[in-house]
């Protein structure tokens, strides 16, 4: 299946209550697949094509505030429009799942793959001090698996989870194992699991209000401390990173998403040439796998960051190792994707041949 299609099916199978979205390449297959599968006739899932990404994200905000399992998907320009809504959701501590299948920018840019929204996703593209959990799939299977992981984490921490995929992962076809169909939560289950949710004052319980507004400075300060405490907790428990051949490596490639797959090949080619190269693939971009990268980089002579961007993740890599080693960037832009030998050449040029 295509990454985008698999993600749509995974959402239905998870027991999603609603999808709200607006078409944009290269992720329109998510909405198209949902409309074709008509889950409202089987699971009762709501699927709605909104009038804009602004409307879509606010529909997601409302659904999440009602304790429902809701998602949206978009690509870079649409993701920009969703930043206000993300900030509101973070401030209201509601659980939601957002997917950004990145294309090249800035501006209308290109419909081809990119990873240039790393800063926007990981450093809080909207206003205020907040974070969303950012998951970076590098296979179609992970497009499926991260739907469940994303929602599980969102409900566990009452935060927004994001799947930050590049256009390659959204568009490529691979075999996948799909999870079993789970039932949607009943209203009773939601009331129990999310006692804060806006579900109407059944049995005249005290009213629930989901708001991001607080004009009392001291309470708002305390709210911010609470958000930060949650973020520290997430950093402690939820950091994920795949390490390959890092035990003995002299050089380390750090890459996520499809560049990690391509870098794997480059790593193998380098090893065939006799160079001990390893690969670290951050799976959570926020929280960034600081400890894992630091550990993997302990004995290396240099680190190459491969990104479909001009160098955004590289800042987190440098911070992780506190600039204790040379860190170089290699990336293609404008929708271009590097071939393995281009990455190998970059390794030679920046480290191996020096």
């Amino acid at each position, binding site marked *: 299946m295509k990454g985008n299609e698999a993600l749509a099916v995974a959402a239905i199978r998870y027991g999603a209550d609603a999808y709200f979205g607006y078409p944009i390449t290269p992720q329109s297959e998510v909405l198209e697949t949902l409309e074709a599968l008509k889950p409202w006739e089987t699971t009762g899932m709501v699927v709605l094509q909104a009038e804009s990404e602004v409307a879509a994200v606010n529909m997601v905000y409302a*659904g999440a505030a009602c304790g429902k399992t809701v998602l949206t998907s978009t690509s870079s320009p649409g993701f920009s429009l969703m930043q206000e809504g993300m900030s509101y959701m973070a401030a209201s501590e509601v659980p939601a799942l957002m997917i950004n299948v990145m294309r090249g920018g800035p501006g209308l840019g290109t419909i081809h793959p990119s990873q240039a929204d790393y800063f926007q996703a990981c450093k809080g593209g909207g206003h205020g001090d907040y974070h969303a959990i950012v998951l970076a799939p590098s296979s179609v299977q992970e497009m499926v698996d991260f739907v469940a992981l994303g929602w599980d984490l969102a409900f566990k921490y009452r935060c927004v989870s994001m799947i930050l995929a590049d256009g390659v992962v959204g568009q490529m076809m691979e075999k996948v194992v799909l999870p079993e169909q789970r039932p949607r939560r009943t209203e009773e289950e939601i009331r129990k699991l999310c006692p804060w949710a806006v579900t*109407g004052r059944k049995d005249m319980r005290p009213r629930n*209000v989901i708001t991001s507004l607080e004009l009392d400075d001291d309470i708002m300060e305390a709210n911010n401390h609470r958000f930060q405490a949650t973020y520290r907790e997430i950093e402690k428990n939820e950091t994920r990173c795949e390490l390959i051949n890092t035990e003995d490596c002299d050089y380390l490639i750090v890459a996520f998403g499809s560049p990690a797959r391509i870098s794997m090949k480059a790593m193998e080619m380098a090893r065939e040439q006799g160079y001990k190269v390893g690969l670290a693939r951050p799976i959570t971009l926020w929280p960034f796998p600081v400890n894992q990268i630091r550990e993997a980089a302990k004995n290396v002579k240099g680190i190459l960051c491969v990104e479909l961007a001009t160098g955004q993740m590289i800042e987190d890599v440098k911070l992780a190792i506190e600039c204790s080693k040379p860190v170089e960037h290699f990336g293609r832009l404008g929708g271009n994707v590097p071939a393995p030998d281009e990455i190998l050449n970059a390794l030679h040029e920046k480290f191996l041949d020096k």
Partner: protein
Amino acid sequence: MELNKIICPENRVYKKPELLNDTHMHYCPGCSHGVVHKLVAQVIEEMGMQEKAIGVSPVGCAVFAYNYIDVDWLQAAHGRAPAMATAAKRLMPDKLVFTYQGDGDLAAIGTAETIHACNRAENITIIFINNAIYGMTGGQMAPTTLLGQKTATCPYGRRVDLNGYPLAIAPLLAQLDGTCYVTRQSVHNVANVRKTKAAIRKAFENSMKGIGTSVVEVVSTCNTGWKLSPEKANEWMVENMFAKYPLGDLKNREE
């Protein structure tokens, strides 16, 4: 007769709705918002929808509506209340979902969300407080500000060449196939307060019947923003606002 014999439940002619809680309202004395809040609370109570009502509050003076009307609330970003209400109602069709929005919220920044929610025939009610000004931010020009009306951002009066025309959005919404009921009311005297209450009741009933979107515009005063006494503000509204925003039903489709 002794006073405590007169003041007894049997003689009661008026009671504050229980859903209107005792929190001090932040509205200026004379403001229409408070009256409309009371009507919304009354209607929810009279319909017995206390356990099913979900309000969506705007960004504007009514942002804190959730502190006054004792039902579940969502607080929307500026202009996005109809999108939030859309999701809440579609996910919980048995609930009474309504938005409560000002003219800047509904007819400027949220025009797209308003028109599309109405056009999709979402089974929600939109309560629209048209006071021809941005009350909350200190009296700037609204899309509904009348020609010649002075505000902080048109201090010499609204002019067509600089600011364009006042936007009457209710007729626009009435044209859409998705709306079943679009009405314009006011709350400046008892007779009109009663009519507005009946309109809100009808709108809420429509929402529960599932026959499309209902819009209740309340032509309102913002005496603070208009820099008039409450009484003068009422007079100004009757003299000036009603010409551009005449009261009455614009659309009333029963099924």
